[in-house]
């Protein structure tokens, strides 16, 4: 992971803590739905928090493909580059 990627990863993990009710250890491979119980509605709220934090837009069209923490980080990075 590059420094920038690490920073994004750390921030995303911080934002995920509110949803991490069972206090699981977060890894890049952690599954948002299966392990953190983030359903499609909660995912929408999470995305908005991430958008505000990084000052980016994440179109809903992309949300269906986000399965893991790593996917979230990659999407933030690609949207930052597009900005």
């Amino acid at each position: 992971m590059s420094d920038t990627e690490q920073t994004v990863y750390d921030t995303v993990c911080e934002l995920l803590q509110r949803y991490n009710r069972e206090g699981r250890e977060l890894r890049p491979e952690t599954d948002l739905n299966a392990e953190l119980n983030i359903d499609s509605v909660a995912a929408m709220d999470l995305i908005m928090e991430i958008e505000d934090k990084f000052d980016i837009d994440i179109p809903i069209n992309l949300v269906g493909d986000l399965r893991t923490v790593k996917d979230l980080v990659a999407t933030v990075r690609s949207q930052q580059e597009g900005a």
Partner: protein
Amino acid sequence: MDILAKYDGLAERRDLMLEAGANPFGLRMEKVLSPTEALVNGRRTLLVGTNNYLGLTFDPHCIAAGVKALQEQGTGTTGSRIANGSYALHEALEEAIARFLKRKSAIVWPTGYQANLGMIAGLAGPGDTILLDADSHSSIYDGCRLSGATLVRFRHNDPADLDKRLARLRRQGAAENGALLVIVEGIYSMLGDIAPLPEFVEVKDRHGAFLLVDEAHSLGVMGVCGRGVAEAQGIEAGVDFLAGTFSKSLGAIGGFGVSDHPHFERLRYCSRPYMFTASASPASIATVIAAIERIEQEPGLIKQLWRNAEALHSGLAAEGFEIAAPVSPVVAVKLPDERLAVAFWNALLQAGIYVNLAVPPGTPNNSCLMRCSVSAAHTPEQIQGVVRTFVEVREALDASAPAS
């Protein structure tokens, strides 16, 4: 794997809900008696959750128009308007809506759901960007998906958040290769809160975007003439497209879109939900035309609706209930959790009052609601009865709750 196994979790939650009493999402009315009453489980029940805002479902003028159309033009049209032709009635309805809303063109769809699908997927396509209010109705989300446009949500009723996102999207070039469409609702169906349209219009104009407002719950409800939130807020000229439904204040079924855009009629051959569905039946169409005439002739109906809304809102608030939004014909009482909400809903029904149970994920901010919709046809005594019953149910549930 069973094809329906993916719904196991939802089915379990539903079964739990059924253990608490009647089915909140499958209520059966054995006989509808009037705009405000029906027989439910053999009991005369007051309807406070039907969106029958003006109480026109039993209006003699509307019924007579429907019966006449049914007898003279048959039960159904048996086909779509592009493949099988329009009846003169369809065009008469479109003229009536355009006249009522003071717009150049109107297009009708067989349901309100399809109207949103048809408007959104007709207006926006791949390459365009839609910015939609986060609390939008499912028909708006579905229309957005069908459009193939890039979809960005903004915070509910927050013009500043829309402004920030439009600025960001334009910096990224979203306006260079496609159009920008902003979608909001007039009155939001769950909480009854109202969009600040003048602020949204200012923002979308500054960014060169188009604005579509869904007035499903505000047509015939807001504005002196009933043209919706845009009329009430004096901003009709700033709204590019309006969509709405016939199934609430107009007491029928169907939906519409209107606009002054010079090419709006192109949707008739470019909007799939318009092209590939059978057109509404003559009786449905005729009752809508008659209902529009009733609103035009009797603005007193809207005043009566608001008197009733004010009475229910202030009555419940005075008894200490928390109501989700300022006065509107949607009065949503907040309850702390789903278990209590289900018990409350069942107790109200047993006491002869039907409201809507609204729980997550169908509600904003995970709220649990007793959603009431007020009608002009409710009597002052009925409204007082609703308030009294809410208080009695709360007392009964408090008394039966285990001491903490």
